[in-house]
């Protein structure tokens, strides 16, 4: 197994891709923490801990969960909303993958073609990708590790991402719910969210919490 560690950046001007450093993707039931293959539950618990410890935890839902195109998408969307509320965390969508013209507002949306803006001038310290097509997510994760010190989590609908600090594969709404349960459990144990207060669009987490 590779000794390489997938840690938050900024690692290099153009950091190597984890796959080329020998990190392999997990098999079903497994997940990755910083390049190590671990049981999936362990990774989910660790992700919950990371999200709670963040000052600006942010969830990036991608097209596969934003758009109601198959049976799974609305289920995951619902779970993500609950997760965002319970953590709390911002939800910043990756609505599509176009190089947007003339500008993109990184507080409103993200896009892998605009890497300098991808994580909001490094204001986001922990982010989570869900439902972004793997090729684009692979790009986004690499650029984040190249340019910022953001801790990345990828809840992948398919085979996972070595370039994320934590990666879970075959994500369903149930796995997001496992993450919610892990957050709840940690909170019950007295772990407090370190998130700075924020207001997002029409939705203020404080008001929704009730």
């Amino acid at each position, binding site marked *: 197994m590779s000794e390489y560690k997938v840690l938050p950046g900024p690692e290099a001007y*153009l950091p*190597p*891709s*984890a*796959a*080329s450093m020998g990190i*392999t*993707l997990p*098999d*079903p039931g497994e997940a990755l923490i910083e390049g190590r293959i671990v049981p999936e539950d362990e990774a989910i618990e660790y992700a919950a801990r990371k999200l709670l410890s963040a000052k600006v935890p942010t969830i990036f839902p991608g*097209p*596969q969960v*934003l*758009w109601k*195109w*198959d049976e799974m998408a609305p289920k995951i969307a619902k779970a993500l909303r609950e997760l965002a509320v319970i953590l709390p965390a911002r939800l910043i969508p990756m*609505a*599509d*993958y*176009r*190089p*947007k*013209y*003339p*500008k*993109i507002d990184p507080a409103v949306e993200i896009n*892998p*073609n*605009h*890497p*300098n803006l991808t994580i909001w001038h490094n204001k986001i310290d922990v982010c989570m990708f869900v439902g972004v*097509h*793997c*090729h*684009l997510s*692979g*790009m986004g994760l*690499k*650029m984040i590790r*190249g*340019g910022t010190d953001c801790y990345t989590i990828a809840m992948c609908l*398919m*085979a*996972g991402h*070595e*370039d994320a600090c934590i990666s879970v594969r075959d994500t369903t709404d149930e796995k997001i719910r496992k993450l919610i349960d892990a957050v709840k459990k940690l909170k019950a144990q007295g772990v407090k969210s370190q998130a700075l207060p924020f207001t997002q669009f029409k939705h203020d987490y404080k008001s929704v919490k009730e």
Partner: protein
Amino acid sequence: MNKKAAVGNKRIIASTHVKLGQKNKKGQTYTDPNRFFFETPGTANFLTGSEVIREAIKRASIDMSVAYPITPQSEAAALIGELYAEGYMGDYFRGESEFAVMSQCAGAAFGGARVFTTTAGPGTMRAFENFPMWAGARLPIQVCVTCRGINSPLSIQPDTLELYFLLETGMLIWHAETAQDLFDFILKGFVVAEQPDVHLPIAVCCDGFFVTHTKDTVMLPPDDVCLPPYDPYKSPVVCMDMECPPVRTMRDPFVMKSNYISYAAHATWQQEMRAACDRSRKHTISLLDGLIDAENTDREILIVASGTAVSQGREAIRLLEQEGVKVGLVKIKSLRPFPTQEVREATKNAKHIFVPEFNMAGWLAREVQAVIPDNHRVVAGPRVGGGMTLPSEVIVEEIKKRLGMKVATLASRGS
């Protein structure tokens, strides 16, 4: 069919959007690849390589194929047409040139189809602009390349120089030694290339004539089983069929350094393509039983080769054995990804590493030299070109010369 995987081995995961066990309109049963490759009994058939391509495609559940005549792949391409006439695929036609054919294959793959095509030599070169485009667009098209000479003056004979050009296109490149390899590689190639974490084009290559026009014994599973079909929604990129999100999307937008798009996007795009190629290792290892085959690598003398050169190496090893010289063999099955670790490990005991090749450039020798320590151990040859044969006696001669043994110089032509 390849060696059976030991029980308890990690298994390949294939698409399951179409129920396994269900029958297609030709009455073939969609079969889990693990069962298909490792549990379905095969029977021996005596066939040419071209016929073997037909047999593989008959069981591959492809949606489409596009053809263009060029020796030595023309027979295979025509046979696939017959399969279409028999109802084994949705569409098939003759394109107007290899450049167009590869673009037509791209169009079909963008639209979510499993596509197969064949080409050779100058055709490969004419098509070339498409190959890095396929890889960048993450299109899991399979092209079977039946290598032939490419430079002027024209030749139709086997020569593997075109493979050198293909190496850095971003495609997966496998090199078949025999008709059996060709059959296995074509079917397994679809399974590996279409993995969501890989999802790259694959060139399954063989040496023209030596494989395509040679009659050889091949084990074939019954023709009433077939691979599960391709699932375009298990793709790392968006399928262009207006059935999946995002609706506003272009495959693939220009990524240039300008006021609104970063150069880093293009660089990481390339890294992601190459990462996908690396990820194929895991799947390839379980399906092909490794990226290399290694025999007797504890010996001081090794032959490292791919394609037909492996066969010639095997015969040379037999001849040398009769004279008491023991030689090991490393057969490289996957050229991309290159089996770097495997080759290092397999060659660690060798004092002399011979790399026989069917091209004048000696690209495989360079690849080996680039990844092993003490690469003066590599003897880059013997090599032939232009479709010349590489008799096993010539490899024997090269090895004996290096060892300081007496050799009678072999004349190739005339006397």
